């Protein structure tokens, strides 16, 4: 399986600071890949450079085999969508106006609202359950609704691969699950490749086909959650002691951190049954 997005010897940094050092990464096509790591480890920086928002200091990024540096930005936009962290909509913008913008790479001066544009936007609004909220101001929506609107915009780009930088931060648990379920479905039904940065390791384990753990400017480990998420990984990547249990609903790894709190139950009465 060719990888839709990959890096060769990629080095990223700002000024004299190196954040990612000579990294080789292959993003598997048609899967959900999730970057995890401690704060400031460079996962957002890596994601942004994959989306050509940041120029590498050295190395290359290949999108469907083509060098990203050789592609025009519009061409990249037709193949790859990125939703940055915490996007802000101008005051007064409606959901429809926002989602429409996602069609920009496919439009031109004369073709500003083709039949396809209309179909895609309708489809996307259905999928994100935003149809009824179409004329509302984006900024007046609740956190979860707003994020769905932004995702709808990114989906409207109709790209093979979609990158999201912390799409669930500041959302309550129900909204987080809703968003992640939506992305999971998109991947299942439409076979789109999804690459995300998530800060919640447990959610990452549940939804990822492929986890990339980043530490010390390099990839510490990469692979299926079941295979790589161990207490040793957590110790090295997050500098934290934990127990790894198995999620009783989904069977994916569940990280239970050590720490203070009420008295730890003894081994016999462990909370999770295997």
């Amino acid at each position, binding site marked *: 399986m060719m990888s839709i997005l990959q890096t060769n010897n990629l080095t990223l940094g700002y000024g004299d600071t190196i954040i990612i050092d000579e990294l080789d990464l292959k993003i598997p096509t048609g899967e959900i890949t999730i970057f995890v790591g401690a704060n400031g480890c460079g996962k957002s920086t890596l994601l*942004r450079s994959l*989306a*050509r*928002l940041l120029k590498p200091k050295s190395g290359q990024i290949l999108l469907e085999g083509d060098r990203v540096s050789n592609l*025009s*930005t*519009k*061409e*990249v*936009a*037709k193949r790859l*969508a*990125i*939703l*940055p962290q915490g*996007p*802000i*909509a*101008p*005051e*007064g*913008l*409606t959901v*429809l*106006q*926002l989602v*429409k*913008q*996602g069609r*920009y*790479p496919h*439009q031109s*001066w*004369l*073709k*500003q*609202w*083709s*039949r*396809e*544009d*209309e179909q895609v936007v309708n489809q996307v609004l259905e999928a994100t359950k935003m149809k009824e909220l*179409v*004329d509302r101001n984006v900024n007046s929506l609740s956190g979860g609704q707003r994020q769905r609107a932004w995702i709808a915009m990114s989906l409207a*780009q109709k790209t093979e691969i979609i990158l999201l930088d912390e799409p669930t931060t500041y959302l309550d648990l129900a909204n987080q699950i809703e968003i992640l379920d939506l992305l999971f479905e998109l991947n299942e039904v439409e076979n789109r490749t999804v690459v995300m940065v998530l800060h919640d390791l447990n959610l990452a384990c549940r939804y990822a086909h492929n986890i990339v753990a980043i530490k010390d400017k390099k990839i510490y480990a990469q692979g299926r959650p079941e295979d790589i998420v161990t207490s040793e990984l957590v110790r090295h990547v997050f500098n934290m002691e934990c127990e790894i249990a198995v999620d009783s609903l989904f069977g994916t790894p569940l990280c239970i951190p050590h720490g203070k709190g009420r008295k730890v139950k003894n081994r016999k009465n462990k909370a999770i049954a295997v």
Partner: protein
Amino acid sequence: MDKYTILRSKYDKISFFLEKKTLIILPFLILMTLLLLIFGLSVGSTIIHPWSIIEHMLGKGTGDYTFIIETLRLPRMTLAFLVGVSLAVSGLILQGLVQNPLASPDIIGITGGAKVAAVSFITFFSAVSIKWLPIVAIIGAGIATFIIYILAWKKGITPIRLVLIGIGVEAGMGALVTMMIVLSPTYSTSEAYIWLTGSVYGSNWNDVFSMLPWVLIFIPITILLSRRINLQEIGDDLALGLGSNVQLDRLILIFVSVALAGSAVAFAGGIGFVGLIAPHIARILVGRSFGSLAPVSALIGGSIVMLADIVARTVFLPLDLPAGVFVSGMGAPFFIFLLYKNRNI
């Protein structure tokens, strides 16, 4: 979804998305502008009945008032309209570029450059024919913008840096102008001051036709760039992610904004405030999409300056005051009202 209509050609080769609200408001605004025009043509030191005006425009007039209408009032009102249109659209572009509803050509130094050039011209080159003044002013605006651009460039231009540098350059220009006014001989001082206040007094058809190309070229360009401006407003990362060439678009838009503001200032002096409030009023009427905002802002801006000039030349008869006084004088209270109404936002 019935809030908009779609224009589509047979094989979907050409298609446009139009918001219904705008389709209703635009004709209304055009009508209002026309009424304002007729009203303006009828008042003044000689009052002409509106019906005579309409007859004259339709070619059936008695010819009695031709001089007043065609030589005195019409060119002046047309220029006022064009100036208002340019300033409003220039302000609209800047507010989108800079992502700040407070932006306008006056605040970020564009008109400051024109003012320095114009006042220098008036003070030091009074021997040269006045017809060079507009060109000098536009060149001044261009140079100031160039300076701002260079100073703001640090591997690209961010909205914040643009505003800050703009404010600095504006302040510098302001000081230069003040220095020239204070140190210059009396006769040029008041001429310079009147120019700074902004006036369309004594405009003739020559002025109108000199300004017209600027409007006819740059306003359509602005409308063509609507979608790109919309992108600039949601942030650099997203704009880039959606495939727009952010820095290039920004440069082009600044250029257009300067051309519009520069030409307006060149022909009407330092009329301020239109670039600030007209877009705000337009936004209240038709919302956020640039394609709708551009024509609506233009009409509102044009009407404001026309109205200000009408008031300026009639309310204190026989005095003919500069329109700039009333654009600010009426604009500021209105702006305060807007602030009051939006206090809970």
